[in-house]
């Protein structure tokens, strides 16, 4: 699954660790999700939506 995490982080000037802290997960998780190695569960995807204050489908994109 593709995502816009890198761009969204850059817009907010957040490091992967900053985002991980906001989500309550490890930096490795953010890195794996951002690079497409791991697709998050639906609850975690909703957390991303809450943190970025935007709908899930504007963060995660269909392949």
């Amino acid at each position: 699954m593709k995502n816009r995490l890198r761009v969204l982080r850059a817009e907010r000037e957040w490091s992967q660790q900053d985002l991980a802290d906001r989500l309550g997960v490890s930096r490795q998780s953010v890195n794996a999700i951002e690079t497409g190695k791991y697709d998050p569960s639906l609850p975690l995807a909703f957390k991303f939506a809450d943190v970025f204050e935007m709908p899930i489908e504007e963060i995660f994109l269909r392949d």
Partner: protein
Amino acid sequence: MTTGHAKRRYHLRMAVAMAIYIASLFVADWLIEDRGVTGIAAVMLASVPGLCVAAIFWILARLVIEESDEFLRLLYIRQIIIATGIALTGASVWGFLELYMLVPHIDAYWWPVIWCLGTGVGGIYNKLTMGTSGNCT
């Protein structure tokens, strides 16, 4: 519950289990080999090191259950599956080779040791495929 809490509990439990394991080895060796303890007492003494090794599996299960980070949970489970595959494959193949006298006997307590080494292989596999090891050992 945060990632750090689960890992700290894991390290504490592992340290306690390993301390009891090492102490029980010395005590069992001293009482059974040197002092001649026999019967049910010897069975109980000889069982303690093995039960400490069994505790490793319980500790890892608790780590998987208590870890709140779903990605790290995935890495731990992958490590455990790979370690289990290596150890059980090794035990099966070696067992049959032993049966037909093609290889020397290996004491059964070595297979959990192979399993622990297998988690290291699982960590390397995680590193190569997911970019991070997970590192549950």
